[in-house]
């Protein structure tokens, strides 16, 4: 099955399958079902070889990609539009793909970090409609109509740093820096909603971002500085 055929039945965004209206109305991906393999056989197949398929499926351009597509309806990418950092980006996305994966490995926005990949650290924090979310715990398909902001999207029109970024620099915020993009996104979300937070409000809002280097005091000072206008 060619990729065109796979996506051919779906209107982008609406999820309607034109070939079989009615029964498959809600399906985003079922048009890729392989007629020649029964559902049950197929599930067994995925269970035994799931690791390889999914692992290869995530490496862009890897030779495994086409095999992954052919072997599994779930491994079918679908072309969608995402609003990232004020721009509309067209991108092929797997049903099980997380936003962190799409941002980093499909859109090249590697400022968003992945660390635990389990919603336990905050390194992958991005803004979805201005609210902080873990992109490792968000399906890309569920944010099609939302506005996503990553660390790359904070810069001003002529490339200048965002006030929160400046404050992080001034206060020598990071040590190794790995958690920093996530910390900054949480701080930006906080100050958008609450420009003059109290000490407690800062601590609470930042409690979803861990820092292995323990730069918490520096970050706290930086956020206080940003809230005071630099």
């Amino acid at each position, binding site marked *: 099955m060619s990729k065109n055929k796979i996506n051919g039945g779906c209107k982008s965004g609406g999820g309607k399958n034109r070939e079989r209206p009615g029964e498959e109305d809600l399906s985003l991906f079922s048009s890729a079902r392989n007629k020649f393999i029964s559902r049950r056989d197929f599930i067994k197949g995925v269970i035994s070889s799931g690791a390889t398929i999914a692992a290869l499926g995530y490496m862009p351009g890897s030779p495994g990609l086409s095999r*992954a597509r052919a072997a599994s309806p779930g491994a079918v990418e679908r072309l969608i539009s995402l609003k990232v950092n004020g721009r509309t980006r067209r991108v092929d996305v797997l049903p099980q793909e997380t936003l962190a994966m799409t941002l980093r490995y499909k859109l090249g926005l590697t400022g968003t970090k992945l660390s635990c990949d389990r919603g336990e650290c905050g390194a992958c924090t991005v803004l979805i409609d201005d609210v902080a979310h873990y992109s*490792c715990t968000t399906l890309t398909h569920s944010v099609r109509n939302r506005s996503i902001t990553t660390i790359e999207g904070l810069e001003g029109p002529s490339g200048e740093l965002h006030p929160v970024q400046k404050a992080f620099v001034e206060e020598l915020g990071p040590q190794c820096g790995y958690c920093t993009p996530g910390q900054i996104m949480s701080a930006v979300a906080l100050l958008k909603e609450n420009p003059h937070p109290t000490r407690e409000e800062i601590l609470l809002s930042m409690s979803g971002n861990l820092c292995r280097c323990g730069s918490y005091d520096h970050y706290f000072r930086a956020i206080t500085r940003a809230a005071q206008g630099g």
Partner: protein
Amino acid sequence: MITDMMTPFELYQPSRVDDALALLNRYDKDAWKLAGGNDSFDWFKDRIKRPRAVIDLNGIAELKGVRETADGIEIGALTTLAEIARNPLVRQKYGLLADAARKVGSPQIRNSGTLGGNVAQDTRCWYYRDGLPCHRAGGNTCYASRPTSMNREHAIFGANRCMAVNASDTAPALVALEAKMVIRNPQGERVVEAKDFFIGPSVDITRMTILTPKDLLSAIRIPSKFANAQFYFEKVSDREAFDFALVNVASATIVKGGVIEQSSIACGGVESVPRHLKVVEDVARGERQNDATAKLVGQAAVRGAAPLNYNQFKIVLMQNLVARAIRGA
């Protein structure tokens, strides 16, 4: 390189409850209901659960929001914990639930995590979560109850082959508020009491709630019985954020002239279900709200506890939390 991506599934994103129910009817046991995903994705990434079809409920507007009803409020199951924590209606009259919601996970988890997902979440016993073939996973042993098992987080009540506890922070609050759970499936709708919604291993060892694969939790109703009562929620965990309760307590108490007229109280982290403390309510009724009563009810609350090797501390913890809840601080 990331080595733990999810295995493929078919993704459905219905925008109406009826469509979601049709999908549940079609896929039954092969379907997985997805809300905020904070519990679900762990299972998928660890490849212990591999649903064929994932039904993303986030696009269903009718499952979201807080509404005032003739007798209290109704909260859509897909309402986020962050929204519940800041909703004026919830905060003013049913602050217990707002306090509990505010204690879940981290800000980001609360921004996507839903009330429905929080009450329907699976247990956190790590033997089970690691995919070991224990009773709950369909096997015939419990890895948490051996002499060397690490069972500091496990049950002190009601263990029946399985020692896992209910990990939800909002569950005890809903039990204390005598909430009603509205469940829909392709056959229709039913409403069950929160305390009957959660089930233990003696009922079904593979599930934490009465929800069956075709059931959708659509809303949670909170009756006005305890509106504006004296509320107390406290959670003790190893870390302030990202961590589950070792023990939590939720109580609603109606006090008149220093005397406890009525109280409703439940503890999490001690049993496979939020433990509804009927005995405490009986002991406290008609007593003065003071230290002596608090001490008495604390002792009553933990009677019959059967700790494991590493969780004796939970008895004292629970006793103290219940005492504080009844005293109001």
